[in-house]
């Protein structure tokens, strides 16, 4: 272990990656200062519930904290919230803040994540009650904007954020329309079978999921927005939620001369090309040993697991980041759990379990290799899929496709 009693570790970004890193670093034995900076003034919170349970929870309910407040005290993790970093000076090993102050670091961890991409739609800036969905403030603002009864909400983008927000706002009594540019929702991340499932689910709950809708302009007049699409259709909206993807926050790293490639490029231990600077979470472009390629992931799993790897590495342990990605989504009464990455698949097998309602799974293959599993109300498929992918298990596809064979560890081998 390196002598680090008098050293300072500075973390930029106090969300899932940064906060988990800070506590992991302490756990690994770091004795020096740990300082966490974030421009978000809110005490660090779980992000996934914002578009799910948080939106529909009792007003004023505190959001879920990543760690209890007292842990920052007991582990001596110094939180600097509402502070914006403007530059990283690698020569002097310090960061500069927008308030004119600087902070020295011995080790720096960049956990800057991503921000919502706001597309250049004509009239968007002049429209009223337009929100992204990324921060606690976004969720609070959306709730506040829904004051009148039966408000009309248009959600631009039919990805997970859009669909989860749609489900939550529907529960709150809103009249919800989702406008998706592609020919189906979730087209970037799932097979057509899953898109169909979610289209039917939302339709059953009276949410309008409309595909092939490219939003071209928004007009605000007489107290309401009108959203226009390229097929000349238009939709009235008291509130507009924009969920069309993200932009990675790489600017600080880029200006500091760190390697950037679809994100901040890091090695197997989450280290950048500067030996004193690490990067973790959504903002990183890293190698995945299982899928044998570089990737950028937007997920809690990646944030937390990379945080642990970086903490070990800084404390002198040689570690290799090697995790199978997993994700989840909750919409209405449906729990979707996903493991692996389906990109590059050439075959899917869909199982609809006959002994339970609304319980199904889609298994993605590239030839004989199982790449990913999307499981709907089916934790068994998710857990077994995880094990199969981890072990590079060869699978008997005809057995997998046969729903008279129950999901058991040895069923499909």
């Amino acid at each position, binding site marked *: 272990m390196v002598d680090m009693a008098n050293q300072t570790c500075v973390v930029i970004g106090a969300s899932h990656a940064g906060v988990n890193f800070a506590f992991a670093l302490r*756990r690994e034995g770091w004795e020096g200062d740990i300082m966490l900076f974030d421009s978000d003034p809110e005490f660090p919170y*779980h992000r*996934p*519930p914002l578009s799910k*349970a948080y939106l529909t929870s009792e007003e004023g309910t505190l959001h*879920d904290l*990543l*760690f*209890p407040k*007292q*842990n920052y005290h007991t582990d001596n993790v110094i939180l600097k919230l509402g502070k914006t970093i403007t530059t990283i000076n690698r020569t002097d090993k310090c960061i500069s803040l927008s308030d004119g102050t600087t902070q020295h670091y011995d080790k720096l961890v960049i956990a800057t994540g991503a921000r919502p991409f706001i597309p250049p739609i004509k009239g968007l800036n002049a429209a009223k009650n337009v929100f992204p969905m990324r921060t606690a403030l976004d969720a609070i603002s959306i709730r506040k904007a829904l004051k009148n009864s039966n408000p009309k909400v248009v959600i631009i983008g039919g990805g997970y954020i859009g669909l989860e927000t749609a489900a939550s706002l529907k529960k709150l009594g809103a009249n919800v329309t989702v406008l998706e540019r592609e020919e189906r929702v979730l087209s970037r991340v799932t097979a057509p079978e899953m898109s169909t499932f979610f289209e039917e689910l939302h339709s059953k709950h009276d949410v309008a999921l409309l595909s092939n809708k490219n939003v071209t302009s928004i007009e605000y007049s007489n107290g309401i927005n009108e959203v226009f699409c390229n097929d000349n259709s238009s939709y009235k909206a008291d509130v507009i939620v924009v969920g069309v993807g993200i932009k990675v926050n790489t600017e600080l790293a880029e200006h500091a001369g760190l390697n950037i490639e679809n994100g901040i490029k890091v090695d197997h231990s989450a280290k950048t090309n500067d030996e004193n600077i690490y990067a973790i979470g959504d903002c990183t472009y890293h190698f995945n040993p299982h899928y044998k390629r570089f990737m950028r992931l937007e997920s*809690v*799993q990646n944030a*937390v697991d990379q945080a642990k790897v970086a903490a070990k590495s800084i404390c002198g342990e040689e570690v290799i980041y090697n995790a199978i990605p*997993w994700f*989840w989504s*909750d919409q209405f009464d449906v*729990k979707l*759990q996903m493991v692996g990455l389906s990109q590059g698949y050439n075959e899917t097998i869909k199982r609809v379990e006959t002994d339970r309602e609304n319980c199904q799974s889609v298994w993605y293959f590239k030839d004989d290799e199982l790449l990913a599993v999307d499981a709907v*109300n*089916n*934790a*068994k498929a*998710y*857990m*077994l899929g995880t*094990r199969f992918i981890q072990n590079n298990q060869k699978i008997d596809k005809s057995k997998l496709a046969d729903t008279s064979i129950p999901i058991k*560890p040895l069923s499909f081998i």
Partner: protein
Amino acid sequence: MAKITFITNDNQTIVAEATTGSVMELAVQNKVKGIDGDCGGVCSCATCHVHVQPEHWEKVGEPSELENDMLEFDDNVSEYSRLCCQVDVSEAVDGIVLKVAR
């Protein structure tokens, strides 16, 4: 108020007290090794797996169908397995002993 005892894999014993929240949150707050709660307590990640001391099983109760399915293929599953994010802290679980599964 409930007093809950956690025993980690390296045989550390941690006794913690709370009145509300989930047992997972209590474990994280008290830095119980092996309890991560990565998903924030929505039964999605299985990083809060514990074995309930058999004599306390009735106090804790049976897992839901979803939780049961999560546990069924876990390498360390036993008949006394629970994901402790799904167990609420209350008087009912006062005095229980939980062994961290990994």
